[in-house]
């Protein structure tokens, strides 16, 4: 068999493999791609602001996302002294009596607000859009046992919301939590307030190197551990 024959054999095998996927379709409509691109541009513009301005901008968004919870944000909107339960339209953070922090996620939005709230609870935390890599954060060495001692993911009965329970007491000294959220391209054009995930979210794992806490049809939430630092986790 000469070189051309070998190429032909490999080409045929790969083509057969690809053809076997004829039933696999990219079902995201083109306008959803465009809407996501526009949302991404807005996000880039927002996060491209100076740090102080970005905090204010994020705060403003958090305020606009407030749900009637009976716990209005402070005047500044920054939850530096937020009540034991801080509820936004996108998520709820409740500090439990045993020190655990329960995060109920309904929308993959307002990461800066969630980050501020977690930090206000004394948790070194970095919450980002998965599209935004934070170079100031370094992954913390971890074992699966350590990881699972810190995080638990649940699916709320009824609503299907994702519940993430964080056990701060299990965090090693010098470590912080990292939560990343991304909206899927099927999400409508809602800027930084993407579609609610409560009807479609389910727990799964993409693959061993892309572990996720919860994967929604419309988005994905990933969690990890990072070295705590002022730049990455606020403390």
């Amino acid at each position, binding site marked *: 068999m000469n*070189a051309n024959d070998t*190429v032909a054999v*490999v080409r045929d095998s790969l083509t057969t493999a690809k053809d076997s996927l004829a039933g696999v379709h990219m079902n995201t409509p083109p306008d959803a791609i465009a809407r996501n691109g526009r949302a991404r*541009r807005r996000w880039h513009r927002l996060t491209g602001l100076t740090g102080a301005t970005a905090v204010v901008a994020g705060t403003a968004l958090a305020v606009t996302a407030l749900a009637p919870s009976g716990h209005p944000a402070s005047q500044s909107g920054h939850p530096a002294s937020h009540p034991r339960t801080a509820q936004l339209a996108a998520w709820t953070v409740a500090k439990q009596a045993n020190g655990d922090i329960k995060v109920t996620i309904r929308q993959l939005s307002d990461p800066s607000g969630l980050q501020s709230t977690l930090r206000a609870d004394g948790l070194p935390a970095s919450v980002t859009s998965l599209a935004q890599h934070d170079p100031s954060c370094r992954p913390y060495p971890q074992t699966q046992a350590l990881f699972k001692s810190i995080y638990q993911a649940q699916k709320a009965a009824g609503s299907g919301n994702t519940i993430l329970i964080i056990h701060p007491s299990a965090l090693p000294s010098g470590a912080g939590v990292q939560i990343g959220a991304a909206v899927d*391209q099927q999400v409508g054009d809602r800027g930084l307030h993407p579609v609610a995930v409560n009807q479609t979210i389910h*727990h799964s*794992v993409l693959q061993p190197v892309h572990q996720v806490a919860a994967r929604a049809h419309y988005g994905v939430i990933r969690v990890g551990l990072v070295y705590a630092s002022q730049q990455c986790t606020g403390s």
Partner: protein
Amino acid sequence: MEFAEFYESTRDDCLRIVLLHVGDRHLAHDLVAEAYTRAWMSWRKVRELEVPRAWVVRTALNTHVSWWRRRRHEVALGHHDTAMPAELATAVSGDLLAALRRLPARQREVVTLRLLLDLDTETTARVLGIAPGTVGAHLHRAVATLRAAIPSHDGQEISK
């Protein structure tokens, strides 16, 4: 060509190619959607490329590497939900796809452009910014590796 037209005409093919590489339907969808979003954001530049769909596939696969580097320290929560397409399990040797995924990055790119996107050597060279002879060398090595992973007609795998 407008973005929507480009997207409609290429999206399924790009998704299937990326799926061959990553082996996970959800992940492939996420990667391709991400690549098309970036293409939309840079459409003025991307549309001028010689083979925009090659840009999409390469971007998706590079994003895969980037995500892997960023997320490799994470550990799973929740239930495991494997998304390997059943079609692949029966259509070809899993060894072939495993061998494809183990190829060095440049060889994998050459295989993708030459054999899966069916570009000729010169176009592949221009897309990758390398010499045509280099394309041939990478393809030769890659094909030798992949051929060894394809079962022969008598059911025995061919050794190198």
